[in-house]
Protein backbone atom coordinates (compact mmCIF):
# COMPACT_ATOMS: atom_id res chain seq x y z
CA UNK A 1 0.00 0.00 0.00
CA UNK A 2 2.75 2.38 0.92
CA UNK A 3 4.16 2.30 -2.59
CA UNK A 4 0.84 3.57 -3.97
CA UNK A 5 0.78 6.25 -1.28
CA UNK A 6 4.18 7.44 -2.44
CA UNK A 7 2.81 9.31 -5.46
CA UNK A 8 0.33 11.14 -3.23
CA UNK A 9 3.11 11.95 -0.80
CA UNK A 10 5.19 13.43 -3.59
CA UNK A 11 2.22 15.45 -4.78
CA UNK A 12 1.94 16.87 -1.28
CA UNK A 13 5.67 17.55 -1.11
CA UNK A 14 5.71 19.39 -4.42
CA UNK A 15 3.32 21.90 -2.87
CA UNK A 16 5.73 22.37 0.04
CA UNK A 17 9.15 22.11 -1.58
CA UNK A 18 8.59 22.34 -5.33
CA UNK A 19 9.56 19.68 -7.86
CA UNK A 20 13.23 20.63 -7.51
CA UNK A 21 12.99 20.14 -3.75
CA UNK A 22 11.52 16.67 -4.29
CA UNK A 23 14.35 15.80 -6.67
CA UNK A 24 16.80 16.78 -3.97
CA UNK A 25 14.90 14.76 -1.38
CA UNK A 26 14.91 11.69 -3.59
CA UNK A 27 18.63 12.02 -4.25
CA UNK A 28 19.27 12.36 -0.56
CA UNK A 29 17.24 9.23 0.12
CA UNK A 30 19.38 7.44 -2.48
CA UNK A 31 22.52 8.56 -0.66
CA UNK A 32 21.09 7.47 2.69
CA UNK A 33 20.09 4.02 1.55
CA UNK A 34 23.42 3.42 -0.18
CA UNK A 35 25.31 4.53 2.93
CA UNK A 36 23.45 1.96 4.99
CA UNK A 37 24.34 -0.95 2.74
CA UNK A 38 27.58 -2.76 3.53
CA UNK A 39 30.74 -2.71 1.48
CA UNK A 40 31.51 -5.62 -0.84
CA UNK A 41 34.70 -6.86 -2.45
CA UNK A 42 35.10 -9.39 -5.26
CA UNK A 43 38.22 -11.04 -6.60
CA UNK A 44 37.25 -10.39 -10.20
CA UNK A 45 34.45 -9.75 -12.64
CA UNK A 46 33.52 -13.42 -12.84
CA UNK A 47 32.80 -13.67 -9.15
CA UNK A 48 30.98 -10.35 -9.15
CA UNK A 49 28.78 -11.35 -12.09
CA UNK A 50 27.96 -14.67 -10.44
CA UNK A 51 27.00 -12.76 -7.28
CA UNK A 52 24.78 -10.45 -9.34
CA UNK A 53 23.14 -13.39 -11.08
CA UNK A 54 22.51 -15.09 -7.74
CA UNK A 55 21.14 -11.86 -6.24
CA UNK A 56 23.81 -11.57 -3.55
CA UNK A 57 25.08 -8.05 -4.20
CA UNK A 58 23.74 -4.73 -2.94
CA UNK A 59 22.40 -4.15 -6.45
CA UNK A 60 20.07 -7.11 -5.96
CA UNK A 61 17.84 -5.03 -3.71
CA UNK A 62 16.36 -3.49 -6.87
CA UNK A 63 15.18 -6.84 -8.25
CA UNK A 64 16.39 -9.22 -10.94
CA UNK A 65 19.50 -7.82 -12.59
CA UNK A 66 20.98 -9.56 -15.62
CA UNK A 67 24.72 -9.17 -16.23
CA UNK A 68 25.17 -8.82 -19.98
CA UNK A 69 28.45 -10.67 -20.03
CA UNK A 70 28.66 -10.46 -23.81
CA UNK A 71 28.84 -6.67 -23.50
CA UNK A 72 32.19 -6.14 -21.83
CA UNK A 73 33.77 -2.71 -21.54
CA UNK A 74 37.52 -2.68 -22.11
CA UNK A 75 40.23 -0.18 -21.35
CA UNK A 76 42.96 1.09 -23.66
CA UNK A 77 45.05 -2.00 -22.91
CA UNK A 78 42.23 -4.33 -23.83
CA UNK A 79 41.54 -5.43 -20.26
CA UNK A 80 37.95 -5.83 -19.17
CA UNK A 81 37.07 -2.98 -16.85
CA UNK A 82 33.30 -3.29 -16.80
CA UNK A 83 30.09 -4.80 -18.07
CA UNK A 84 26.57 -3.80 -18.92
CA UNK A 85 23.73 -4.80 -16.60
CA UNK A 86 20.04 -4.70 -17.29
CA UNK A 87 16.65 -5.16 -15.69
CA UNK A 88 13.77 -6.64 -17.62
CA UNK A 89 11.30 -4.65 -15.57
CA UNK A 90 11.69 -1.27 -13.93
CA UNK A 91 11.22 -1.51 -10.15
CA UNK A 92 8.53 1.12 -10.28
CA UNK A 93 6.33 -0.47 -12.97
CA UNK A 94 4.42 -2.74 -10.55
CA UNK A 95 3.67 0.33 -8.44
CA UNK A 96 2.44 2.20 -11.51
CA UNK A 97 0.09 -0.66 -12.34
CA UNK A 98 -1.03 -0.91 -8.72
CA UNK A 99 -1.71 2.82 -8.65
CA UNK A 100 -3.66 2.72 -11.88
CA UNK A 101 -5.66 -0.19 -10.55
CA UNK A 102 -6.37 1.32 -7.13
CA UNK A 103 -6.53 5.03 -7.88
CA UNK A 104 -7.23 5.12 -11.59
CA UNK A 105 -4.37 7.27 -12.83
CA UNK A 106 -0.85 8.21 -11.92
CA UNK A 107 -0.47 11.43 -10.02
CA UNK A 108 0.73 14.37 -12.16
CA UNK A 109 3.42 14.74 -9.49
CA UNK A 110 5.21 11.79 -11.04
CA UNK A 111 5.61 13.63 -14.33
CA UNK A 112 6.47 16.91 -12.63
CA UNK A 113 9.40 15.36 -10.77
CA UNK A 114 10.51 13.40 -13.83
CA UNK A 115 10.50 16.51 -16.02
CA UNK A 116 12.36 18.53 -13.43
CA UNK A 117 15.08 15.89 -13.24
CA UNK A 118 15.32 15.53 -17.01
CA UNK A 119 15.60 19.25 -17.58
CA UNK A 120 18.03 20.12 -14.84
CA UNK A 121 20.01 17.04 -13.83
CA UNK A 122 20.13 14.18 -16.32
CA UNK A 123 17.77 13.51 -19.20
CA UNK A 124 17.26 9.83 -18.49
CA UNK A 125 14.26 9.54 -16.12
CA UNK A 126 11.04 7.89 -17.22
CA UNK A 127 9.39 8.05 -13.79
CA UNK A 128 10.03 9.85 -10.53
CA UNK A 129 11.65 6.75 -9.04
CA UNK A 130 14.53 7.03 -11.56
CA UNK A 131 15.67 10.09 -9.59
CA UNK A 132 16.26 8.02 -6.49
CA UNK A 133 17.36 4.92 -8.33
CA UNK A 134 20.12 6.51 -10.39
CA UNK A 135 21.66 8.18 -7.34
CA UNK A 136 21.36 4.98 -5.31
CA UNK A 137 23.24 2.99 -7.96
CA UNK A 138 25.95 5.62 -8.29
CA UNK A 139 26.52 5.60 -4.54
CA UNK A 140 26.29 1.84 -4.04
CA UNK A 141 28.83 1.28 -6.82
CA UNK A 142 31.40 3.18 -4.76
CA UNK A 143 30.99 0.60 -1.97
CA UNK A 144 31.72 -2.34 -4.24
CA UNK A 145 35.21 -3.23 -5.35
CA UNK A 146 36.25 -5.67 -8.04
CA UNK A 147 39.91 -6.71 -8.15
CA UNK A 148 40.59 -3.98 -5.61
CA UNK A 149 39.01 -1.20 -7.66
CA UNK A 150 35.81 0.49 -6.60
CA UNK A 151 33.11 0.79 -9.24
CA UNK A 152 31.35 3.63 -10.99
CA UNK A 153 27.83 3.32 -12.33
CA UNK A 154 26.53 4.93 -15.52
CA UNK A 155 22.82 4.79 -16.24
CA UNK A 156 22.63 4.32 -20.00
CA UNK A 157 19.05 3.76 -21.09
CA UNK A 158 15.54 3.46 -19.72
CA UNK A 159 12.12 2.50 -21.03
CA UNK A 160 8.98 3.64 -19.23
CA UNK A 161 5.69 1.77 -18.85
CA UNK A 162 4.22 3.75 -21.76
CA UNK A 163 7.05 2.69 -24.08
CA UNK A 164 8.90 6.00 -23.93
CA UNK A 165 12.64 5.45 -24.12
CA UNK A 166 15.57 7.55 -22.96
CA UNK A 167 19.21 7.06 -23.84
CA UNK A 168 21.91 9.05 -22.08
CA UNK A 169 24.19 10.29 -24.87
CA UNK A 170 26.68 11.50 -22.28
CA UNK A 171 26.99 8.18 -20.45
CA UNK A 172 26.84 6.08 -23.61
CA UNK A 173 29.80 8.05 -24.95
CA UNK A 174 31.59 7.69 -21.63
CA UNK A 175 31.60 3.90 -21.80
CA UNK A 176 32.00 3.80 -25.59
CA UNK A 177 28.80 1.89 -26.36
CA UNK A 178 26.93 2.42 -29.60
CA UNK A 179 23.47 3.96 -29.19
CA UNK A 180 22.08 1.39 -31.65
CA UNK A 181 23.11 -1.34 -29.22
CA UNK A 182 21.20 0.50 -26.52
CA UNK A 183 18.09 0.68 -28.66
CA UNK A 184 18.36 -3.03 -29.34
CA UNK A 185 18.71 -3.78 -25.63
CA UNK A 186 15.68 -1.66 -24.82
CA UNK A 187 13.52 -4.10 -26.75
CA UNK A 188 14.13 -6.67 -24.03
CA UNK A 189 15.06 -4.57 -21.02
CA UNK A 190 13.62 -1.53 -19.31
CA UNK A 191 16.77 -0.28 -17.60
CA UNK A 192 20.37 -0.65 -18.77
CA UNK A 193 23.42 0.56 -16.90
CA UNK A 194 27.18 0.05 -16.94
CA UNK A 195 29.45 -0.75 -14.03
CA UNK A 196 33.09 0.08 -14.65
CA UNK A 197 36.17 0.29 -12.51
CA UNK A 198 36.57 3.79 -11.21
CA UNK A 199 39.32 5.69 -12.96
CA UNK A 200 39.70 3.19 -15.81
CA UNK A 201 40.83 4.62 -19.15
CA UNK A 202 38.11 3.20 -21.31
CA UNK A 203 38.96 2.28 -24.86
CA UNK A 204 37.44 4.71 -27.35
CA UNK A 205 36.06 6.93 -24.58
CA UNK A 206 34.57 9.99 -26.19
Amino acid at each position, binding site marked *: *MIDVALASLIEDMIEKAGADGVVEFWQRVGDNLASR*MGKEAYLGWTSFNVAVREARTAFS*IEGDVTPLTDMAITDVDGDVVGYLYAMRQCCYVPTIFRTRFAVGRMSPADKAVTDEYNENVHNIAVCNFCVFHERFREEIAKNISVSGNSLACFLLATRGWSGETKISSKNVAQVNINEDHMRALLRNYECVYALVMRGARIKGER
Partner: protein
Amino acid sequence: MASESRMPESNPFVEIATHLFLEDIATKVGIAGLNNYLVSLAKNLAGSMPKEEYTTWSEFLSALSTGQSILSTFEEVRPITDHCMSTFHSPFERGWREYAKRVGAFAPVPILRSSAVGGSTRSGSAPSLRSTARSRNTTITRSDRPL
Protein backbone atom coordinates in the same frame (compact mmCIF):
# COMPACT_ATOMS: atom_id res chain seq x y z
CA MET B 1 -4.23 -10.68 0.41
CA ALA B 2 -7.40 -10.93 -1.58
CA SER B 3 -6.23 -8.24 -3.93
CA GLU B 4 -2.96 -9.96 -4.78
CA SER B 5 -4.59 -12.09 -7.43
CA ARG B 6 -5.57 -8.92 -9.30
CA MET B 7 -2.77 -6.54 -8.46
CA PRO B 8 0.90 -7.19 -9.15
CA GLU B 9 3.19 -7.35 -6.13
CA SER B 10 5.11 -4.17 -5.55
CA ASN B 11 8.88 -4.27 -5.81
CA PRO B 12 10.31 -4.36 -2.24
CA PHE B 13 12.86 -1.77 -3.30
CA VAL B 14 10.10 0.79 -3.82
CA GLU B 15 8.67 0.06 -0.38
CA ILE B 16 12.08 0.38 1.26
CA ALA B 17 12.73 3.61 -0.61
CA THR B 18 9.39 4.97 0.55
CA HIS B 19 10.19 4.15 4.17
CA LEU B 20 13.50 5.96 3.78
CA PHE B 21 11.71 8.86 2.16
CA LEU B 22 9.50 9.11 5.26
CA GLU B 23 12.55 8.83 7.51
CA ASP B 24 14.15 11.70 5.67
CA ILE B 25 11.06 13.84 6.13
CA ALA B 26 10.99 12.91 9.84
CA THR B 27 14.60 14.02 10.18
CA LYS B 28 13.62 17.43 8.84
CA VAL B 29 10.26 18.04 10.44
CA GLY B 30 10.20 15.72 13.47
CA ILE B 31 7.62 13.20 14.57
CA ALA B 32 4.73 15.64 14.81
CA GLY B 33 5.53 17.03 11.40
CA LEU B 34 5.69 13.56 9.91
CA ASN B 35 2.38 12.67 11.51
CA ASN B 36 0.82 15.72 9.90
CA TYR B 37 2.32 14.68 6.58
CA LEU B 38 0.89 11.19 6.90
CA VAL B 39 -2.55 12.51 7.79
CA SER B 40 -2.41 14.85 4.82
CA LEU B 41 -1.19 11.97 2.67
CA ALA B 42 -4.08 9.75 3.75
CA LYS B 43 -6.56 12.49 2.89
CA ASN B 44 -4.98 13.08 -0.52
CA LEU B 45 -4.81 9.41 -1.37
CA ALA B 46 -8.34 8.69 -0.21
CA GLY B 47 -9.54 11.77 -2.10
CA SER B 48 -8.04 10.46 -5.32
CA MET B 49 -9.76 7.07 -5.02
CA PRO B 50 -12.89 6.51 -7.11
CA LYS B 51 -16.26 6.63 -5.36
CA GLU B 52 -18.28 3.46 -4.79
CA GLU B 53 -21.97 2.91 -4.32
CA TYR B 54 -23.82 -0.22 -3.27
CA THR B 55 -27.55 -0.82 -3.24
CA THR B 56 -27.51 -3.07 -0.19
CA TRP B 57 -25.26 -3.73 2.79
CA SER B 58 -24.85 -7.36 1.76
CA GLU B 59 -23.64 -6.27 -1.66
CA PHE B 60 -21.06 -4.06 0.04
CA LEU B 61 -19.98 -6.90 2.33
CA SER B 62 -19.57 -9.16 -0.65
CA ALA B 63 -17.44 -6.58 -2.46
CA LEU B 64 -15.39 -6.09 0.69
CA SER B 65 -14.65 -9.76 1.23
CA THR B 66 -13.84 -10.45 -2.43
CA GLY B 67 -11.44 -7.52 -2.73
CA GLN B 68 -13.71 -5.53 -5.05
CA SER B 69 -14.07 -2.56 -2.72
CA ILE B 70 -11.39 0.09 -2.40
CA LEU B 71 -11.25 -0.74 1.31
CA SER B 72 -9.93 -4.18 0.48
CA THR B 73 -7.67 -3.22 -2.40
CA PHE B 74 -4.55 -3.19 -0.28
CA GLU B 75 -5.43 -5.64 2.46
CA GLU B 76 -7.53 -8.69 3.04
CA VAL B 77 -10.66 -7.70 4.90
CA ARG B 78 -12.67 -10.43 6.60
CA PRO B 79 -16.05 -9.64 8.11
CA ILE B 80 -16.43 -11.01 11.66
CA THR B 81 -20.06 -9.90 11.75
CA ASP B 82 -22.00 -7.80 9.30
CA HIS B 83 -20.61 -4.64 10.86
CA CYS B 84 -17.30 -5.79 12.28
CA MET B 85 -14.33 -6.14 9.92
CA SER B 86 -10.87 -7.50 10.58
CA THR B 87 -7.57 -7.48 8.71
CA PHE B 88 -5.13 -10.33 9.22
CA HIS B 89 -2.01 -8.56 8.08
CA SER B 90 -0.93 -4.95 8.03
CA PRO B 91 -0.44 -3.70 4.46
CA PHE B 92 2.85 -2.23 5.65
CA GLU B 93 4.14 -5.52 7.00
CA ARG B 94 5.95 -6.51 3.81
CA GLY B 95 7.74 -3.18 3.60
CA TRP B 96 8.87 -3.42 7.21
CA ARG B 97 10.06 -6.98 6.72
CA GLU B 98 12.01 -6.13 3.59
CA TYR B 99 13.52 -3.08 5.24
CA ALA B 100 14.68 -5.11 8.24
CA LYS B 101 16.04 -7.81 5.96
CA ARG B 102 17.90 -5.65 3.48
CA VAL B 103 18.76 -2.46 5.33
CA GLY B 104 18.65 -3.27 9.06
CA ALA B 105 17.08 -1.60 12.06
CA PHE B 106 14.84 1.40 11.57
CA ALA B 107 16.60 4.70 12.04
CA PRO B 108 15.63 6.60 15.19
CA VAL B 109 13.43 9.63 14.51
CA PRO B 110 14.61 12.82 16.19
CA ILE B 111 12.07 14.66 18.31
CA LEU B 112 11.96 18.24 17.10
CA ARG B 113 10.05 21.06 18.71
CA SER B 114 7.44 22.45 16.39
CA SER B 115 9.00 25.93 16.53
CA ALA B 116 12.23 24.53 15.16
CA VAL B 117 10.68 23.37 11.94
CA GLY B 118 9.05 26.60 10.98
CA GLY B 119 5.41 25.84 11.46
CA SER B 120 2.73 24.59 13.76
CA THR B 121 2.57 20.85 14.00
CA ARG B 122 -0.73 20.80 15.82
CA SER B 123 -2.81 22.62 13.31
CA GLY B 124 -2.98 19.73 10.92
CA SER B 125 -0.92 21.38 8.21
CA ALA B 126 2.41 19.91 7.27
CA PRO B 127 5.40 22.16 7.97
CA SER B 128 7.29 23.67 5.09
CA LEU B 129 10.08 21.62 3.58
CA ARG B 130 11.15 24.20 1.04
CA SER B 131 13.80 25.82 3.20
CA THR B 132 15.33 22.52 4.24
CA ALA B 133 15.39 21.27 0.68
CA ARG B 134 17.06 24.45 -0.51
CA SER B 135 19.62 24.49 2.29
CA ARG B 136 20.88 21.06 1.27
CA ASN B 137 21.49 22.18 -2.26
CA THR B 138 25.24 22.41 -1.86
CA THR B 139 25.61 18.89 -0.59
CA ILE B 140 23.44 16.85 -2.85
CA THR B 141 23.40 18.35 -6.29
CA ARG B 142 24.83 16.11 -8.95
CA SER B 143 27.41 18.53 -10.20
CA ASP B 144 29.11 18.72 -6.81
CA ARG B 145 29.70 15.04 -6.55
CA PRO B 146 32.97 13.57 -7.79
CA LEU B 147 32.60 10.64 -10.11
